[in-house]
């Protein structure tokens, strides 16, 4: 009984889901249901017409040479009009059912877009990208799958109703025998749904596994090649694929069994109707044509009944997919800042007070960090690999809030600034430059509000103008996904131009020139020096970059080990070892 209860709750949740979906776009759905109703009515009507034609046209003509109460012309007219009306019903149902489901999908995707763009960065860092992409793709699709067969299934309800009426009009005893088929079909459909639910869910899980392996493996194509792991990867993929195959075969077996039964049930019904009918005809209660009508009704019922089963089948996966979506859609968006605090003109001061930060449950990356930067000052953050330098850069930009402590920019706490204000004031160049699959202009001017001249100027300072000029389409050159058609150094220069374009009053460079070769880096640094009318925070590895700074903040074990002028810090052995490694090696 436990399974039954679970199944019922799935159906109830399915009903809620259907309601929520339809509420978004009720009109096309209603039209679609009307179409389904027309289809159902005409389907039953067509069998009545067939029976009448047998009785009023065919039999009389053959017996007496004359038609009965229907003329041949009327018979053809009735038949064609019922058929065309039925066709119209089908077209309306199909088109508007698709329209409903597609519009609901678009609505869900719009909401996902709002969530993906509105939720804080920390949420993105905790949520696997693959999962978010699956929400927008397969989950949305599966969640609305239920809407496709739904109007047809509602049509089937009409169909059953109309069939019952038409059967009762023919002959009550015959109708009782014939109608027994509906509860039988419903019962079998029910067993079918229950049986297939778990194996079908297993298939869905396997589909996910296969996609995950493929995604990861193709992402790492270069590493797979250089390690010669193609065969091992094929094996890994193969075992995921084989599991999916076996699970699908299992579902296929269950489906085949039920399909065979459901398929033959109407035919068995006809046989029963013929036997019972023979007695009723003999008794004079039923005409032969009416028997034909009942028999043909059964033959047209087979397919719609299967659609009903198909609808029930789509409910559990749709419910599961909707649950997954709901996990994201229900996340409350951070409230938009109505009033942003005012910040005085000129280069911004920065004050970091007792800031700590950790990723998840791990040891803190930053532990009670305090330092300040005067307006217009250039400060370098130095530390070993994995010391939390990038994290600090993200915190000062306001992308991620600290676990504890405060950060003030221009004497205003970051959390009192609106996102727009922060964006305008602070420019961060990320360590890994992310480019969009669009033109270079788009990638530099992400807001699309700057003039051609401003873009050109930013590109020139970032030493990007020269290589852009060499491209046939210049700033209109489209870069590949994530900028793959550019070299690492070129990507970094585009990303730098992006930050300079908005003339930020605080510029944060997170090891932003690591992939640029020495000569170009020197060009960039010198043009930055001449452009520096802002406060600059640089995460750096190279001594040349460090010497650009007025002061150095030295991070070690998540704390500030020292801060001060580069020359002064060189007295600290730990600092000297870190920054002068190359110089020492050259000697």
């Amino acid at each position, binding site marked *: 009984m436990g399974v039954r209860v679970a199944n019922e709750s799935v159906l109830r949740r399915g009903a809620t889901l259907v309601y929520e979906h339809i509420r978004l776009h009720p009109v096309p759905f209603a039209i679609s249901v009307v179409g389904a109703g027309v289809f159902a009515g005409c389907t039953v009507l067509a069998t009545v017409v067939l029976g009448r034609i047998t009785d009023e046209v065919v039999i009389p003509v053959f017996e007496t040479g004359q038609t009965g109460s229907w003329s041949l012309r009327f018979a053809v007219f009735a038949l064609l009009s019922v058929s065309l009306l039925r066709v119209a019903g089908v077209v309306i149902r199909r088109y508007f059912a698709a329209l409903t489901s597609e519009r609901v999908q678009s609505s869900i995707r719009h909401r996902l877009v709002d969530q993906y763009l509105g939720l804080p960065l920390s949420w993105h860092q905790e949520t696997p990208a693959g999962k978010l992409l699956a929400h927008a793709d397969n989950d949305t699709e599966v969640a609305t799958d239920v809407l496709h067969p739904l109007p047809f299934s509602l049509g089937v309800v009409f169909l059953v109703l109309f069939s019952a009426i038409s059967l009762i009009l023919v002959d009550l005893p015959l109708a009782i025998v014939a109608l027994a088929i509906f509860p039988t079909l419903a019962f079998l459909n029910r067993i079918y749904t229950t049986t297939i639910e778990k194996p079908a869910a297993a298939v869905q899980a396997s589909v996910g596994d296969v996609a995950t392996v493929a995604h990861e493996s193709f992402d790492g194509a270069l590493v797979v090649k250089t390690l010669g792991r193609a065969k091992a990867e094929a094996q890994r993929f193969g075992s995921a694929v084989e599991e999916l*195959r076996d699970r699908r075969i299992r579902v296929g077996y269950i489906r085949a069994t039920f399909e065979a039964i459901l398929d033959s049930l109407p035919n068995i019904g006809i046989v029963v109707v013929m036997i019972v009918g023979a007695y009723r005809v003999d008794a004079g209660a039923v005409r032969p044509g009416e028997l034909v009508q009942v028999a043909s009704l059964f033959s047209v019922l087979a397919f719609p009944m299967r659609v009903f089963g198909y609808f029930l089948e789509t409910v559990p996966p749709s419910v599961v997919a909707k649950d997954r979506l709901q996990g994201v859609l229900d996340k409350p968006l951070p409230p938009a800042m109505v009033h942003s605090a005012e910040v005085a003109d000129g280069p911004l001061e920065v004050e970091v007070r007792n800031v700590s930060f950790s990723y998840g449950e791990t040891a803190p990356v930053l532990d009670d960090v305090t330092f300040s930067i005067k307006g217009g000052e250039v400060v370098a953050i130095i530390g070993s690999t994995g010391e939390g330098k990038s994290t600090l850069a993200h915190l000062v930009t306001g992308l991620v809030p600290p676990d504890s402590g405060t950060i003030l920019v221009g004497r205003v706490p970051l959390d009192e600034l609106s996102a727009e204000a922060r964006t305008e004031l602070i420019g961060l160049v990320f360590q890994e430059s992310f480019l969009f699959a669009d033109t270079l202009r788009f990638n530099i001017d992400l807001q699309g509000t700057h003039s051609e001249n401003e873009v050109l100027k930013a590109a020139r300072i970032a030493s990007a103008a020269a290589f852009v000029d060499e491209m046939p389409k210049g700033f209109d050159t489209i870069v590949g996904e994530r900028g793959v058609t550019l070299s690492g150094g070129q990507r970094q220069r585009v990303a730098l131009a992006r930050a300079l374009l908005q003339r930020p009053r605080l510029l944060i460079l997170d090891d932003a020139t690591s992939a640029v070769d020495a000569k170009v880096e020197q060009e960039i640094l010198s043009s930055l020096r001449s452009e520096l009318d802002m406060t600059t925070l640089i995460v750096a590895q190279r001594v040349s970059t460090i010497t650009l700074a007025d002061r150095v903040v030295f991070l070690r074990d998540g704390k500030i080990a020292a801060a001060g002028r580069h020359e002064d810090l060189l007295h600290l052995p730990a600092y000297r070892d870190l920054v002068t490694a190359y110089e020492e090696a050259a000697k």
Partner: protein
Amino acid sequence: MTATKPPVASLNETDEISEGAISVLRRGLVATPELKSGLRIVVIMGLLIAFGRLAIPVLIERSLSQGMTIVDAGMQGRESEVEVNIGLVVGLSLTALVLIVFSAVGTLFVQRRLVVQAERGIANLRQQAFVKVHELSIADHTETRRGVLVARVTSDAESLARFAQWGLYAWSIHPTVILGTFAVLAYYSWQIAAVVALSLAPVVPILKWLQRRQLEAYDNYRTSVGDMLTGFSEAVMGAAVVRAYGAESRTRDRLRSAIYNRYRARMRANTYMAGVFVVGDIFGALAFSMALIFGVRFREAWGLTSSELVACLFLIVLLNGPIAELGEVLDQTQTAIAGWRKILGLLDHQTDVLAPIAGLEIPSGAVEIQARGVGFSYRNSSPVLTKINITIPGGASVAIVGQTGSGKSTFATLLCRLADPTVGEVRLNGIDLRQASADSRHRSVRMVSQDGFLFDSTIRENVRFGRQGASDSDVQAAFDRLELGWWLEKLANGIDTEVGERGDNLSVGERQLVALARAALADPGLLILDEATSAVDPETDQALTTAIRNLAQGRTLVSIAHRLATAEAADLVLVFDQGLLVQQGSHSQLVDRPGIYRGLHQAWVGNTQADSYK
């Protein structure tokens, strides 16, 4: 030996649909022989199932013609008297029942058989496609959107699987059922059969036309889905950039229009679909009317009885079912054919880098590199490398330097055969790389690239990928040889730390450390480091330089770095500029000579030495 590359179509291309469904089917059956082997038995069973289906109209006809005799047909049906031979009707009915049960069992058998064969075929196809993707050159990978490649082994294959669960059965059985129905129809009256056939004939060209349009519509739809997913992937992967630059509203607009485009494309496909479905219905009604008119008019000339005509009419009604269901599955059939064609297109894609049939072994030990007249260009663009001639003795430590875009990375790519030279040849220990077996190449050459991609597993497992069958202690030893024990100790879970998707839990520099450890585990004769420590801090980098030099004892080491510390320490420096090898020699030889190297080195020294700005 000059090998010219064949012109290769981009894998992204989706607009070419010169190929019809039949041709896809023919090619598809070659790629998946599993489907073919099940075919004959299915056709035979289909015939038997068709018999079962036809039992019903025959039962009705027999019952009406022989079981029920109209004794006195009055003008009003109610008043006519019908004499019923109950025994005969029951006997006929029971015979029909047996046929129906038989047909059900046959359906069950055929369905199962079809699912098994189809699923095996699809699994095989997926695996072939997966292997093929890894055979594609790096140039292909760069050019092709990642989502497109993933779609070939996921959603495209999924569309085939969905088809296999339902549509395939319909296509295997219903044509036989339709033909069988016609046969019975012709048995009653070949004239009626001819009338019906003629009335239904226009369905075929109309459906063909609709199908072609629909195929186009589906391909457009798939492209629009790809665009939308790219947009979503950017909003997710670029979440930090979007927030840092206030690009939310622009990203939202772009995504909304991509969502709308997908919706439009899908609805266009759906419109054709709605048309496809009803064509059969309309012509079915027409055929019925024609049969009725002709049957009544020519009843005597064609020697028809009333029950025969009723049976004929019933058979025509019966035709509607299979035709309608074929229409219903046409939707998924189109999707499946489009998906199938795309997978086959991938399989047929000409690989730039072909594995030799009987590969040669690269002799073990430090690898001597010979490049003879090597040139390279991507597709139709201008050459990246021109006439590179160099011999690097086994065991040498070589640094390749040059500005961004000078061709230095491309040269490294050719050394590990991520691509083949467009002209000329690369020999390792005397063996042309194109002739070397893949296994031997992987054993002899190991490259560590700048992008330290890691698999979503622990550090230990990621390093273990460096050599098959490496033990835990081997993995630990790899870190020890690089003197990176201190770094592992800093991590909460040490060597068993989960690195996350693509290695995202680690910083860029940390990922590079893992990639190096992976290389240290292997025992290659040639080790290539392409900016392998670009994101590592200077102190660690210097420590690694020493460790790598020790590691490279008895091997050839080729390093590409913009940090010229590497060049200072190398036996031989190769300077690339605009695709040419412009200078070669040791650091001390080159540093005082006027030329590119001196310029690069001065810039580097300026970068590393604090006092240069004072």
